[in-house]
């Protein structure tokens, strides 16, 4: 494999916070999918052979660096003794998006973050900070996520209305598009607030104005 593309793959995967699909990596390094896939496999084998404390792993449909399972006792100790017991930047951002834009689907979160969010969403769900609050009325009936009472409790607030306003902040065009995309595909017409959604949650139509919870 070319040294340049190998180095590029290592660099990109090192700095992204969720697994990256091979397709995306192929695009970023301007190579074919099959070239990238064989490079990634070769690279993963190389790190394994060198007996590194980390692995290049294929998880959740993407590639990422992660600690080697053999080293779990050290990482566990780090979690318990160190200051590491907190959400990653990626997880915190995902949680913030759900808090301000709920209810929204996994696909909408992924479109806003620009990366796959499956593992992060799973973590947040497991910890009880977000949960299913409705089903998309459209054909796919996608799960729509929202924050839970536990989330409010841990932040020490009574309702979503207590979140600091982001009204003066204008999100990027890609964010607005990601949310619109969900609407067009799912409903195709004027959207009504899904019946099951708590009234305190802003409707999607409100969200398109770019505001946070009223």
């Amino acid at each position, binding site marked *: 494999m070319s040294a340049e593309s190998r180095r590029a793959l290592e660099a990109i995967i090192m700095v992204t916070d969720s697994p990256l699909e091979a397709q995306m990596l192929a695009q970023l390094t301007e190579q074919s999918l099959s070239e990238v896939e064989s490079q990634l496999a070769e690279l993963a084998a190389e790190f394994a052979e060198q007996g590194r404390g980390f692995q290049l792993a294929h998880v959740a449909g993407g590639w990422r660096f992660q600690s080697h399972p053999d080293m779990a006792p050290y990482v566990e100790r780090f979690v318990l003794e160190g200051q590491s017991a907190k959400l990653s930047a990626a997880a915190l951002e995902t949680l913030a998006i759900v808090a301000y834009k709920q209810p929204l689907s996994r696909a909408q979160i992924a479109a806003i973050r620009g990366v796959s969010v499956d593992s992060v969403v799973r973590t947040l769900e497991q910890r009880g900070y977000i949960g299913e609050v409705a089903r998309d009325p459209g054909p796919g009936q996608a799960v729509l996520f929202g924050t839970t009472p536990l989330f409010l409790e841990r932040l020490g*607030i009574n309702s979503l209305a207590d979140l600091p306003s982001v009204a003066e902040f204008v999100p990027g065009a890609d964010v607005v598009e990601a949310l619109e995309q969900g609407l067009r595909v799912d409903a195709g017409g004027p959207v009504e607030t899904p019946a099951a959604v708590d009234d305190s949650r802003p409707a999607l139509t409100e969200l398109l104005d770019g505001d946070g919870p009223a």
Partner: protein
Amino acid sequence: MPYEVQTPVFEGPFDLLLHLILREQVDLYEVSLSRIVDAYLQEIERMEVLDLEITTEFLLIAATLVELKCKRLLPEDTDVDIDDEFALWEERDLLIARLLDCKTFKDAAGVISTLFDAAALSAPRTAGLEERFMELAPDLLEGVDLDDIRNAYIRATIPKPRPVVSIEHIHSIRISVTDAVEELIDELPRLGRVTFRRLTGTLVERLEIVVRFLAVLELFKQGFVELDQPAAFGDIEIIWLGSPAMAVADLSDIDSYEG
């Protein structure tokens, strides 16, 4: 031509003085002192809270400048009090020390800027813990407050800079100074007197304006027009001197410019 001190460009009086002395090599004697003093006073006005210490220092500096200048404008007084003379030198040395301090940190800022740029080429790994270790922690929101959530949201949804390939420069225009001269010879006799800004008011391409400027200079060289610019960077006034019947000298060697 009077020396125009463009105060808004400068970061305050020290910056202004440094610029005048070091880069422009302007003799203090030639600078309108009132402008520097004005800059000091403006700075004092701009302060949100009147800080007596800074204000006093400003006044001291301004006073030193005034005194230095007076000394150089007035015929020498033979009865100079030697103590006053020394006091002035001391003030001057103090001012120089302050200017040197200011210059030192200007240069240090350059290095810091370079370090910022170099470091920006590397991105840190921020992925954090893998999910399987998350369960070990009792509360992952420990220490997270509302502002953290808000900042995380803004970080996640901030408009992302996208690399844009500018194609503006591809659009090429071809104009020659000869054509511009001919246009001016047609236009100027009717106008008689016109400012350069008005003359180029309808042009959008910078190159067109440049070519027109070259054409004006060409006419000036050949004695067709008189130019007047009362202030540096001020508008240039063009006054037509010739008559429409006058023949234009050989313009064949004037270049054309391609954008």
